[in-house]
């Protein structure tokens, strides 16, 4: 029995993996919500840089800048900086965009840009140096006049690198951040401002470990200063604010760390899989972060936990109600087989059985009066009630025809006792096993019922997602239904094994034979 359960669970893992791959592939066929028209993007950058950043951020939040499943050249800060530099030097149509990116990467990109300045011809050197001006401004160095003149700017940056190359090393920054956390001083903070985004790796790592408000204040201020986004934590912030700010920084870092961090050898190899849309999504999922909804930007995980209880509760209630009604009805019909009761029941149940859930729901929704959860549960129950009681009747008839029932009757037991005590236990088996298959059906029904009664459950949310092509939510809902139904089927298998020793035996045998083979 245990082996059977284990086998099913083990099978479920690759199956879910496969399903996620397929669904994910289908979602990538959807048009890019932020638009991928390169020319339009470029002109937008000149017209409205803020709007551009917003769109760009949205694309990156959904990893649309990455390939789907395989990344032959995973990009890190080094490749990005070098590419941007080459494009600025080439001064072609994309150089504005490259310059914008370079400024965003900031200090982290400098170790890959500044040493190369010496080898460039003077005009190109000047062009690059002018492009870098906003970084110096962020660091609080130089004055605008110097930085906007190509020749002087080039000189400034050359001197800058001669003076400060040693500051741009991880050990130095790590030490500096460590000291800032231990005894925060303004001087230490100023040192870190001077390396700009180069300090982000350590800053954000330190945010996760320290709980000291003062240190957090300094760390978040640094990060905000370097990235021009995000939330500061002040010594007066509430615990919830601190929690939210830190998780926001963590999520941001998860998306953007490729702009600031260098991949080492092993990471580069793994990057061909992880630096993809699917890879990033899976990495996030492993941490319980299922991405952001494209509809309202809320985290999918939070939405899922907010919506699921209603749907699962609705389904469970409907399941309970239909079993509670179906078993007695089925037994009654079988017991009074051929009588008017049986015929009427068969007639009514057949009608209910052919009744679409959404129609029942719609009829009930029109019925005046405040129903709260009663009407949705009743609407959901109708279909499965009919199925289950028809099953129950059939299996009861099977059991009643058996010898041991006749024996019990012959011993002089009352018909009631025979039916309820002797026959029912065996006759319930097939019906109970059916629960695993009823569950997916009810879940599908619940989606419709929620929509009709405007209940904000998974189904309601899914229909909104369908309207807005919210791919991240749709992927997750498919996987969640798959997991839930797999669990339901597994549970009904286990229930069968518990209720029927013969099944337990046969599960075990099959398992052993397969191991031997």
């Amino acid at each position, binding site marked *: 029995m245990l082996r059977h359960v284990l086998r099913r669970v083990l099978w479920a893992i690759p199956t879910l993996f496969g399903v996620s791959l397929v669904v994910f592939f289908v979602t990538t066929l959807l048009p890019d919500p932020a638009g991928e028209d390169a020319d339009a993007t470029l002109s937008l950058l000149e017209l409205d840089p803020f709007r551009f950043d917003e769109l760009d951020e949205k694309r990156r939040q959904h990893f649309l800048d990455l390939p789907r499943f395989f990344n032959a050249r995973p990009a890190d800060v080094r490749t990005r900086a070098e590419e941007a530099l080459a494009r600025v030097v080439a001064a072609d149509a994309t150089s504005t965009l490259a310059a914008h990116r370079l400024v965003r990467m900031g200090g982290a990109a400098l170790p890959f840009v500044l040493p190369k300045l010496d080898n460039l011809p003077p005009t190109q050197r000047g062009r690059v140096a002018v492009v870098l001006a906003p970084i110096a401004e962020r660091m609080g160095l130089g004055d605008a006049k110097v930085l906007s003149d190509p020749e002087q700017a080039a000189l400034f940056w050359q001197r800058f690198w001669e003076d400060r190359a040693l500051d741009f090393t991880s050990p130095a920054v790590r030490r500096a951040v460590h000291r800032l956390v231990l005894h925060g001083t303004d001087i230490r903070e100023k040192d870190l401002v001077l390396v700009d985004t180069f300090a982000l790796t350590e800053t954000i790592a330190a945010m996760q470990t320290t709980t000291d408000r003062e240190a957090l204040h300094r760390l978040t201020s640094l990060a905000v200063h370097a990235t021009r986004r995000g939330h500061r934590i002040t010594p007066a912030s509430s615990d919830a604010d601190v929690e939210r700010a830190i998780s926001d920084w963590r999520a941001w870092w998860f998306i953007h760390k490729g702009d600031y961090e260098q991949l080492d050898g092993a990471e580069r190899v793994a990057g061909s899989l992880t630096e993809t849309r699917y890879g990033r999504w899976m990495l996030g999922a492993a941490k319980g972060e299922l991405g952001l909804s494209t509809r309202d930007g809320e985290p999918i995980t939070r939405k899922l936990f907010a919506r699921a209880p209603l749907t699962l509760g609705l389904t469970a209630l409907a399941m309970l109600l239909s079993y509670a009604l179906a078993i007695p009805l089925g037994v009654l019909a079988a017991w009074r087989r051929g009588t008017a009761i049986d015929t009427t029941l068969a007639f009514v149940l057949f009608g209910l059985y052919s*009744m679409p859930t*959404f129609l029942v729901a719609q009829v009930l929704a029109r019925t005046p009066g405040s129903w709260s959860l009663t009407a949705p549960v009743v609407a959901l129950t109708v279909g499965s009630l009919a199925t289950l009681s028809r099953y129950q009747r059939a*299996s009861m008839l099977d059991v009643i025809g058996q010898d041991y029932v006749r024996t019990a009757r012959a011993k002089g037991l009352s018909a009631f006792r025979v039916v309820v005590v002797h026959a029912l236990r065996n006759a319930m088996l097939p019906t109970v096993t059916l629960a695993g298959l009823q569950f997916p059906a009810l879940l599908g029904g619940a*989606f419709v019922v929620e929509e009709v009664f405007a209940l904000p459950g998974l189904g309601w949310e899914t*229909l909104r997602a369908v309207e807005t092509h919210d791919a991240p939510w749709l992927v997750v809902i498919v996987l969640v239904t*798959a997991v839930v139904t797999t669990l339901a089927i597994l549970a009904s298998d286990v229930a069968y094994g518990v209720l029927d020793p013969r099944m337990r035996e046969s599960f075990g045998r099959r398992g052993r034979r397969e191991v031997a083979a």
Partner: protein
Amino acid sequence: MTERTTPPGEEPFDGAMPLQTRKRSVAPPPSERVPPSMPPPALVPAPEGTMRQVLARMRRSRHAMLGLVAICGLFLLSVFADLLASDLPILCRVQGTTYVLPAVTHPAALAGWDNARVTAEAGPGGFSLAPLVPYGPRQTASGADVAPLVAPSLSRAHPLGTDAFGRDVFARLVHGARTAMSIALLAVLAFVSLGTLLGALAGFFGGPFDGLVSRIVETLTAFPTLILVLVVQALVPHPTTATLLITLALTRWTEVARLVRAEVILITSQDYVLAARALGASPARVLWRHVAPNARAPVLVSATFGLASVVLIEAALDFLRVGLPGPVPSWGEMLSESRDHLAAWWLLVFPGLSLFLSVVSLNLVGEALRDALDPRLHAAVGGSGAAHAAGDGDRPTIAPSSTAFDGTTHA
């Protein structure tokens, strides 16, 4: 069909048609007692005989006949929808030209016309034979006589009322029947073909391919069909009727594949198939002459229930407004309109009733077919019609395999 004359002990017991084969093998007429290697004399082909027997059994069931009649009626309704309700006449003579069924042939001269205009501008010698209800399913309120949300009345104009756009409910109902029937037939055709193909290949070749197909079947079964179709429909960039059909086919083929695969495995392991192969029959011949006749019946049952489930799913999708794009008349879409106009009971009752009755009829026929094919029932009652009449007919097979019980009604 030489192989059919093998000794009784080697008969296939496949659960689908044992009665027929047993009868033939227990008392084969002398003319049929020929060595297997000789060419067979002209026999009545077994499969047709089986189907005839099944039909004969079904004919004894009053419920099944009722359902069958209703479905035939529905088909006639959808085929002749243009005669019952259309914005153009059945036959007319306008300004010297005679048009037959202009609603179907779409003559350029009458583009944009309706019945009222045809009557008004028929000219000398012109006449027009209007359909039962002189409005088309997409014809919106235009004239003074067409108003939105007209209640049903016995007048000829709008016997079942109009919807919020002034479209005639009867016309939409009749044309909705056409939509439902054509979608259902096409989808069932598609998923039966797909399921048969994959099931037959999986059963015949076995090995890794079989493993793959079985796994896919198992995976797809774990999903609520409605949710799957909903999501796929949402993820397709430009949903059309074709994508809906493809989605339905891709999600519903598993049942047929499972049935066919089981049948193929069962039949190909029979000695007479071995004998046939030893005689040089190709795999294709084995599949066609031995497996296909046996698999036909369960697939037919599955297809019948499949029709019901596709009608339901399509209606549910339209009800949720994610189904057919555009102004295609459909029952589900009418029902979804009733959500916005609670007072207009006719928008709920008529399409709801049509949907319910067609699903009931399809289920009745499906159940009768399944009962007619269920050997246990006939072993017990000897195939008498009493079983169906007494309500024994709704005995479901106790296995999670039955098509009717995988949630199709919960759409």
